[in-house]
């Protein structure tokens, strides 16, 4: 086996030079060993780039695994809860995978790059689990996070930017589709995926071509309001889209110590991803039992009255809170684009049915003084932000 030097200290992504050049606030954090920007200029403006123009986010640190081999489909079908046989080459699937008890380890996207060749992307690292799950399968799993440079290009003008850049055929690319293009003689994979709930793409390329790609992209985006963004703006966008984040809205089951703190896909509102009709998948027995007996928790999307974000709030069944707390908020924000006070939370069943009301206890500070407010919240079914342009094919040009 080829030995590789182990990196010391914090890594820089192949786009670091370009990000650093645009950076004015010097706010960075560590993401799986890499420096990742919280923000580069102003997070509000960055957020509006997502919703009104084109935002570029460096997602190189996202964990990527390449899964190949004769059993790759069978392997993935055993790993994740949804039926991967339905995901043809050139398609991408959002998926969750569970431990033996049917508790979610992580969610992620699986790219069917070519026939029988897959890439699995997730926020967290899962090599040990993926290798364990490979016992008895003829598959090769390669950790390729460092071998692929990736950018998210998201926002209403993103299609026009990429078209101006000279990328062809994106008109036909449907949401969760991917295509292989050429960029300066190198293969560039473009997928219509993202973490913003908006029209958007992700670009995947050899790290050697990363800077050239960035330059071409920003050159093309000049007239389309292109802007590099950090994770804070993205975080707001993903809550609006109703997407889950590990360690925020659920804990990876293999990282939990106490029982009862992990969640099943049914409890996370991901029942649509669980296919009991497909061949055996990990956690199936436990999930079938949960389906029979009922879940303990229910993830809820909350539309809360007022404008004070319900960060870390307890959720109650009634206004007086005299029936005890029924859950808590996991992600919260004031949504500028929806003009709504939104949150994701987890409540005990049978609370949390769409259309029902709950109360959240919001604490907020005003000139050092703390205030408390019980705010009524409605459980909503759909994502807060789901514009028609997200799925329009071909996307409208700007």
């Amino acid at each position, binding site marked *: 086996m080829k030995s590789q030097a182990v990196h010391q200290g914090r890594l820089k992504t192949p786009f670091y030079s370009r990000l650093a050049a645009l950076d004015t606030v010097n706010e960075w954090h560590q993401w799986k060993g890499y420096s990742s920007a919280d923000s580069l200029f102003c997070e509000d403006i960055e957020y509006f780039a997502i919703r009104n123009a084109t935002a570029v986010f460096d997602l190189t640190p996202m964990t990527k695994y390449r899964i190949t081999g004769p059993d790759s489909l069978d392997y993935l079908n055993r790993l994740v809860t949804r039926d991967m046989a339905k995901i043809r080459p050139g398609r991408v699937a959002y998926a969750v995978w569970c431990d033996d008890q049917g508790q979610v380890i992580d969610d992620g996207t699986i790219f069917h790059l070519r026939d029988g060749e897959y890439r699995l992307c997730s926020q967290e690292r899962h090599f040990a689990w993926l290798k364990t799950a490979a016992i008895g399968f003829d598959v090769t799993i390669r950790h390729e996070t460092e071998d692929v440079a990736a950018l998210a290009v998201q926002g209403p003008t993103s299609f026009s930017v990429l078209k101006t850049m000279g990328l062809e055929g994106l008109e036909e690319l449907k949401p969760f589709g991917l295509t292989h293009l050429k960029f300066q003689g190198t293969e560039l994979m473009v997928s219509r995926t993202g973490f913003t709930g908006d029209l958007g793409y992700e670009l995947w390329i050899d790290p050697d071509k990363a800077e050239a790609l960035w330059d071409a992209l920003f050159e093309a985006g000049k007239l389309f309001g292109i802007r590099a963004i950090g994770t804070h703006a993205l975080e707001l966008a993903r809550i609006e889209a109703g997407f889950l984040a590990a360690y925020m809205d659920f804990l990876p089951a293999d990282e939990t110590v106490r029982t009862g703190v992990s969640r099943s896909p049914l409890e996370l509102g991901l029942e649509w991803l669980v296919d009991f009709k497909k061949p*055996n998948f990990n*956690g199936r027995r436990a999930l079938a039992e949960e389906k029979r007996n009922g879940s303990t928790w229910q993830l809820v999307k909350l539309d809360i009255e007022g404008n004070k974000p319900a960060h870390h709030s307890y959720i109650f069944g009634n206004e007086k809170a005299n029936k005890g707390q029924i859950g808590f908020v996991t992600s919260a924000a004031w949504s500028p684009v929806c003009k709504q006070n939104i949150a994701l939370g987890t409540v005990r069943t049978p609370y949390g049915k769409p259309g029902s009301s709950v109360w959240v206890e919001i604490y907020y500070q005003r000139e050092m003084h703390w205030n408390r407010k019980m705010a009524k919240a409605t459980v909503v079914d759909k994502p807060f932000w789901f514009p028609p342009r997200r799925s329009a094919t071909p996307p409208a040009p700007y």
Partner: protein
Amino acid sequence: MGERYDAIVVGAGHNGLVCSALLAKAGKNVLVLEANEQVGGAAVTREFADGYSVSACAHLLYQLQPEVRKELKLAPTLSSEDMTTIALAEKGKHVRLTWNTVAGVSDADVASYRRFKKRMMRFADLLRKYLNKAPPRLGTKDMKDLVTLGQLGFDIRRLGKQEMREFLRLIGMNIYDELDERFESPLLKGALSLDAVLGTHLGPRSPNTVMTYLYRLAGDHGRAAIPKGGMGSVSDELAHEARVSGATIRTQMPVKRIIVENGRVTGVETEDGERFDSYTVISNADPKRTVMGLVGARHVETGFARRIHHLRSKGNAAKLHLALDGLPIIEGLSKKDFAERLVIAPDEHYVERAFNPAKYGESSPNPVIEMTFPSFRDQTLAPTGKHVLSAVVQYAPYDLKGGWNKEARETFRQAVIDTISNYAPDIEQRITASELLTPVDIEREFHITGGHWHHGELTLDQFLFVRPVSGAAQYRMPLDGLYLCGAGAHPGGGVSGAAGRNAARAILGREKAA
């Protein structure tokens, strides 16, 4: 669709036969499919040289559980019983051990041995009670499990304060330290060390070898016997009992796979493509072969597959069969002593040193040997005047460095014969034919992954509540309709029938509860 049965047993090893006989007695329509020509699995008698037959793998009967005997009315005819163990000494000053006495050692050792055996047998009896029950699950609210668990605690407490402490001290300990504290005679210590480690990948200084020793005693207190006609006669009797009770046994029907549909077992398919249907499939095969081979990892949970995959099941005991044109001369032995069990383990260090190379994938140059001459009182096994020597030899690691090629086998065979020659100088001249079965051969011939006696190392982390692995200790695998009934399940190997009986009871009990 194939023929439908109430239960299909994969493998007609002795446990599979016990299980199928008990299920058939309870009115079940049972089919047993055996890959080999003979029933019995590793408990068979077969010819290894022209006119010479031998118990091909297990050769001594000492653990057959009274419950199994009683429920199946088994009464094997024995050619030798209550055998004395003779620990051979080079100058003929052998030590003779019976189940409660020892001769040829100092008076202090004689007294120590009596005390030692008394205690060990008491502990073994406690263990024996639980070998014949499905082990309770931990962390459960199931009443039956809680009662069994409570009973176990109570039984340990009932030993008395002193003995309970002693039990808890010893159960995880190595036999070497215990023997060293109690005895002087190296030969005695050697022989007892051998008893503790036979059939395992353990040396006398390995942890929990007191437990493996107790396991050996947890039947007839270690009193060994040789069935007339070899171990195959016990299997034949079991098969007869199963057939009479209504079970169908078909040999030369290797099972290719256990069929899983919609998350449950629905039948089996043989190598010939024949299909048999049943919602209850009981595997007598080892856990690895059953789960990873016959079922396939994809049909079970990842964590369970991982635990099965990592099961330690590499055998270390070889079997040597010699066809002799007459009995060898061993100094200090009278003729009738050839009916007994002879062991070569001159002292406890010798046994540990024999184990050392095995840790590094090498066979022992000075092996530990357990020998019997089954033909001595059984004319059916060899031509008149000629004899068969059946020996269990350690250590012969399954994954020998460089593999068990012709040269490696010859080296080991010679090492064994040289070792025997130290006690029986004329042995080499007496040999007319020989057969060496390494764990690799045992794996091939008896379809036991790793060629391990117990289908999985008998250590505390693979014992009782966690045998073969945690979450699957009650014969029922975490796949609807799949059961284990072989040595890989609780309690373990040896011709005891306990696993087969417990499995049958678990299956029938479950049905009653439903």
